[in-house]
């Protein structure tokens, strides 16, 4: 067989044009499959990495999914608020290290407005315990000087073209009602956050006191008639928040998490609830998982189409070789020689293509990852292939190899007749 190897190599070199096309097509199929799979898993990861480093999310008693939806994803609204006293009370539990209260409900041109404390920018972690970073500027100061300061997420800044120093006004509620604007108290953008791929990108952050200030002259969801408190006057009022929407809790040790959860759930002052973000996110993912199943279906279709293309390319390449195989058969090559030639080449070409495709997908993630993260908020990870990706690689290899064997069997039947008949 070693004599054949030389022949195989020279034959392949002679057809290097067609073969490189085959390799490229296999590489593209592999790239498509791997990237798609990577995207699918990373979208899930992006989703479940919306919050980390927070041990418990506390809110008024409702379902865990609802609590996560409004507290972390800023979607929908809370049915009830949490008294600030209760938050302070819970913060006194000996296992609690920090509490970040959050006040939601207003919006800015479709983006959620989050009232919180400056500690939020240190305590809130996402992804693999990554901290928020400022692309420009800094956090709002949290004192009266910084009352009308705002920090915007990366997507807010990009979509609305905001830069530092920009004056913005907030809308009451989701912004759906015209005229419900806090136009009298404009804010100044003092910080723009770096992209995170989480809902933080789509959020405008202000202080809790600011939320109080803009609602001083409001009642029942509308400006109170005849009452107008100027921005400067507002500083003279007691702006300490009475109520918040939810709070993030960090513990001194993970062991206490169930004890603190029970403590919150059994809190006597008002009906409260604490959820473990990881558990709740998984639950939430199950709700929105329909999208993932659609992606999975799409992934399967991409796989079938690209593998079919791969088989077609290999089969088309065989026509070019019919005469060559006929000559080999005529000079004494047996069927096993012909099969070996085709199989060896098929295996090599498929392997080369799959390796190239895998390399391309790594390069793609490395090159386009940051851009995709910034643009679409999907954090593509440069990590070892997942089990599913190995499976896909295996499928590409098996399909390519099988595709090169099928014509081998056909070639065996045809080649002698081709060679020994004059119409050759």
């Amino acid at each position, binding site marked *: 067989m070693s004599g*054949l190897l030389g*022949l195989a190599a020279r034959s392949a070199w*002679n057809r290097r044009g067609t073969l490189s096309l085959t390799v490229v097509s296999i590489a593209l199929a592999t790239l498509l499959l791997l990237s798609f799979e990577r995207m699918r898993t990373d979208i899930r990861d992006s989703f479940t990495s919306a919050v980390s480093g927070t041990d418990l999310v506390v809110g008024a008693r409702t379902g865990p999914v609802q609590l996560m939806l409004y507290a972390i994803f800023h979607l929908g609204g809370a049915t009830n608020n949490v008294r600030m006293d209760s938050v302070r009370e819970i913060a006194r539990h000996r296992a609690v290290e920090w509490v970040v209260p959050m006040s939601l409900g207003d919006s800015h041109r479709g983006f959620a407005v989050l009232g919180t404390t400056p500690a939020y920018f240190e305590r809130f972690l996402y992804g693999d315990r990554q901290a928020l970073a400022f692309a420009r500027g800094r956090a709002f100061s949290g004192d009266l000087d910084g009352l009308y300061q705002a920090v915007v997420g990366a997507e807010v800044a990009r979509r609305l073209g905001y830069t530092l120093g920009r004056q913005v006004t907030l809308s009451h509620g989701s912004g759906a009602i015209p005229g419900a604007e806090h136009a009298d108290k404009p804010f100044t953008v003092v910080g723009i956050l770096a992209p995170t791929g989480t809902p933080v990108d789509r959020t405008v952050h202000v202080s809790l006191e600011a939320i109080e200030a803009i609602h001083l002259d409001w009642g029942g969801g509308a400006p109170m008639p005849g009452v107008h408190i100027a921005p400067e006057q507002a500083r003279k009022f007691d702006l300490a928040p009475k109520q918040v929407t939810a709070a993030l809790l960090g513990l001194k040790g993970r062991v206490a998490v169930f004890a603190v959860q029970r403590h919150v759930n059994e809190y006597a002052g008002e009906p409260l609830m604490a959820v473990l973000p990881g558990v709740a996110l998984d639950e939430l993912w199950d709700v929105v998982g329909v999208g993932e199943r659609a992606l999975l279906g799409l992934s399967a279709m991409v796989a079938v189409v690209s593998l079919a293309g791969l088989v077609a390319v290999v089969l088309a390449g065989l026509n070019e070789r019919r005469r*060559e195989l006929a000559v*080999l058969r005529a000079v*004494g*090559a047996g069927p096993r020689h012909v099969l070996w030639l085709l199989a060896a080449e098929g295996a090599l070409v498929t392997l080369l293509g799959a390796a190239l495709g895998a390399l391309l997908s790594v390069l793609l993630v490395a090159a386009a990852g940051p851009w995709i993260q910034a643009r679409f908020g999907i954090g593509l990870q440069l990590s070892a292939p997942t089990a599913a990706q190995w499976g896909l690689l295996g499928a590409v290899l098996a399909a390519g190899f099988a595709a090169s064997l099928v014509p081998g069997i056909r070639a065996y039947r045809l080649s002698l007749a081709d060679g020994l*008949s004059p119409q*050759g």
Partner: protein
Amino acid sequence: MIEIRQLRYAWPRAGHDVLAIDAFEVAAGERVFVHGPSGCGKSTLLGLLAGVLLPREGEVRLLGRSWASLSGARRDAMRADHVGYIFQQFNLLPWLDAAGNVTLPCRFSPTRRQRAGDAEHAAASLLARVGLAERDWHRPAAQLSVGQQQRVAAARALIGAPEVVIADEPTSALDAPLRDAFMDLLLGACRDAGSALVFVSHDERLAAPFDRRVSLPALNRVRAEVPT
């Protein structure tokens, strides 16, 4: 060397025989010219002689062994060991040089490798014998003229001195002067190697130098009204 007894052959899906030959022999070293018009079953006959096709009835023997008694793999090995084959055209691997093409049978048949001795050396002397200039020995076959290619094919059919050389209209792509030169070379080389030659052609002008000429339509007891 080659014996045909009571042969009947029909194409797999045809309802009638195309070849019916009661007896036909080729002796060792004999050079036989088989002629007949196009479509009279010449290629079918060669397929039967080389064991590519098996008769419906009767038998075809090579060196005393019936092709039908051998397995597919044994037929392949038998053919590689004892039969050299020349087609009308496209005999060579275009990307392989002339010498490489000539030594191809030695890669697949230990018998012929053994008989050829040093394959490179045997190829060189055969290429010289068929009159290919030495500067062309290491050029890829695709760069050779059709006449040169057919001479390389003849050299290849003869390497390792197979008992039988089967030539299927090998001169059909050559013009008259080339054709005559090729015939001389082929017949001479076969005589040197001691190989029997079965040469089929529709062109009876080529028959003169052969030991024997056979008309396939006369030999075949099926009247050729159906093209093969």
